């Protein structure tokens, strides 16, 4: 199976207090970057689908990772290559010059070039939190989609049985490949992914894998190509325009409450919710 995983770096959520807003823009200088966690789950899912979990060194499929960003974002791609992805593509652009719709249109062109059987995405970015790209991409491609996957079982690499996380429970869908799937946190549980190559008794360790240091050095030798955004989408007009940014208001200090009676009282008189 050939899988394409779009991924992106986001500013480290632990450094939220460093974020500054100026001149209608979020200041990004001096921020530390991390791969978007949901994208890391998508890479992990792709790797699990293309290997025998008991011998993860031998690759039994092809995982291509792609990011949209300036040269520095290649670190994010190298990290994914180090954990096992086979090749990487960087589409040269900046965060300001793209939105979910343009991203989906460019990805469509890339899918037509790379011809993957599956596009796996994180359900959303933890910076913009738009949660659009998977849905738009499926629509543009005319492929079936399953979003918020918490569990995936591959049926002979022809179809996927996807358990989707929704409010109040889960929905099971069978999607025929090629398809677009976005993943949620639970997918990286020990048994989140069942592939045709891995014995059903195998248990992964929870969470995403991390690269051995030697593999990080070796990943330098894997293919990383650069593509111009306009080569994928000549039309780079944006549908979303940002008119301004504000930091959330600082939280007011809380109060300590000693008794239940006092709590009820405060809920009535101050919070006015009772």
């Amino acid at each position, binding site marked *: 199976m050939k899988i394409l995983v779009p991924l992106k770096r986001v500013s480290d959520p632990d450094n939220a207090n460093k974020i500054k807003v100026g001149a209608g823009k979020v200041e990004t200088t001096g921020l530390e970057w991390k791969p978007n966690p949901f994208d890391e789950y998508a890479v992990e899912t792709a790797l699990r689908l293309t290997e025998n979990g008991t011998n993860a060194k031998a690759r039994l499929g092809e995982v291509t990772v792609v990011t949209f960003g300036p040269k520095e974002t290649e670190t994010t791609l*190298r*990290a994914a290559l*180090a954990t096992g992805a086979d090749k990487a593509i960087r589409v040269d652009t900046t965060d300001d010059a793209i939105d979910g719709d343009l991203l989906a249109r460019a990805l469509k062109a890339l899918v037509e070039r790379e011809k993957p059987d599956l596009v796996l995405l994180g359900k959303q970015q933890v910076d913009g939190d738009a949660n659009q790209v998977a849905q738009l991409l499926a629509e543009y491609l005319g492929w079936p989609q399953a979003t918020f996957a918490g569990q995936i079982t591959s049926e002979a690499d022809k179809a996927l049985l996807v358990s989707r996380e929704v409010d109040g429970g889960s929905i099971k869908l069978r999607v025929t490949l090629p398809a677009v799937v976005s993943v949620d946190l639970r997918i990286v549980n020990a048994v989140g992914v069942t592939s045709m190559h891995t014995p059903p008794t195998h248990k992964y*360790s929870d969470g995403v894998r991390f690269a051995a*240091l*030697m593999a*990080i*050095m070796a990943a330098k030798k894997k293919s990383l190509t650069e593509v111009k955004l306009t080569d994928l989408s000549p039309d780079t007009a944006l549908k979303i325009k940002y008119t301004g940014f504000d930091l959330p208001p600082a939280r007011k200090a809380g109060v300590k409450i000693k008794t239940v009676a006092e709590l009820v009282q405060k809920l009535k008189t101050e919070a006015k919710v009772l």
Partner: protein
Amino acid sequence: MHGPSFMKSLFHGVVAEGTIFPYPEPTQSEGDNLHIMMDSVRKFFAANVDSRKIDRDAVLPDDVLRGLKELGLFGLVVPQEYGGVGLSATGYARLIEEVATLDASVAVTLGGHQSIGLKALLLFGTDEQKKKYLPRLATGEHVAAFALTEPGAGSDAAAIQTRAEETPEGDYLLNGSKIWITNGGLADVLTVFARTSSIEEGMKPRITAFLVERAWGVKSGPNEHKLGIRGSSTTEVSFDNVRVPKENVLGEVGRGFKVAMEVLNSGRLGLASGCVGSCKRLIKMAVERCHERKAFGRPIGEFGLIKDKIASMIAECFALESMTYLTTGLVDAKIEDYSIESAICKVYGSEALWRTVNDALQIAAGIGYMQEYPYERLLRDARINLIFEGTNEILRCFIALSGMQGPGKELVEVAKAIREPIKGFGLLSDFAIRKARSALGRERMTRAHPALSRESVILEQYAGDLARSVDKVMRKHGNQIHEMQFTQRRIADMAIDLYAVAACVARTTRAIERRGEEGARREIDLTSVVAAAAEERMKQIAQSFDRNDDELRKAIASKSYADGGYPFDIL
């Protein structure tokens, strides 16, 4: 890069700017790799390493060790051609910094393996030796240790008694025992130092380094019970007629002391960067506490005396980081002699960390004292750094004597001077001549950014003071200087402060060139605080060369030795 070391030049009053400007930095590609590697390391530790349990059980669990090996942390300095990660000195130091932030027992275990354990093989090994041993050391299939210390030879390493007797076939039979060997219980391959000459009074002791496999009959004792870094293995290691083939001599026969000193010179940088990591962690904890804890209706962080502590922690960490990575940069630029610089980083680093952990615990106060919180463990873990890889006392003597010796002389001579005071120091006599010659050298900082002119003046002025003081004490005391440890300490302390200021100025100059004065404001402020504190100390030291109570203090100590302790009681 050739030329004398920065500090050795400074002892002559010459500011060798070319050596420290521009402040070095890792290549883009290594920087990127390090980011990815540190991310892996953090993920591994978060999932697998329980420092509290490791401290309590006083052992690194097998699965943690296995995981560290699989991650590649045992092969950091081994070149890629031998299956290692092949990091530069800077890359290695930065990664050890990260590990030390997370767990000191693991950092010491990794350091015992590759900062010192396999370092002699890397520096002095033949191609055959490297081919045979490095690949398995790189994966951690084999663990290494460095075995120098003995019951009767700690600081005075040249006094070791372990013997290597040559057999008729040219091999060696090892007999003797080593104590407090890090990784003693884990090691498969040990760098062992032994005498290859008989012990005769007045004869030059000939020491040789050997690479010894445990499988040849090396025995190790149980793990020692320790104050801190309790998860690291520290044991006795003994040799009872262990036969070592002649192919396993490291470096030249009889030149083992030089091997040991070179290994420690480089090992001290890993120790210093580990101290950087621990300081950063403590600063983060202390800052969090400043927000969280309220007293008198305010967060404690608002009180002046707390702010003062935080400012000192940050300034000292900045100075330490600047010095450490300046020095690793010099190593990567292949400068030959960085022995004084690395000793300075070790002394400053271990003491800055000790002050930092003490202050962080003080800010935490009651909870800092409780085992429920990590402060007390971090305090216990930090203490070792002042002791091993050369005690700070020995290293201060080394910094001073080696600096006064001038460039080009071997470190071995310094140790010899401490051991054999009467014969040792012929080399010092021509110091004055060289000093006069070097008066032609430059004594000014021209490449520092103008925004740092005050700090540069402090450096220039006290570099001159150091050179003059050195000159004066040498004229006055001649070869007796090796007996004058109070004076040596003054010289060493000035040298340490000067290196700190120089490193901060070079680093901040680079920052200003990159980001402008406003962009580098915090670095400028920190450099200013570091330089002011250094100036304060150096001013006092400069005066105390002539006016002091050294003799009185010596007499008090001697009397108390005779008394057997403290002589008074109010009753």
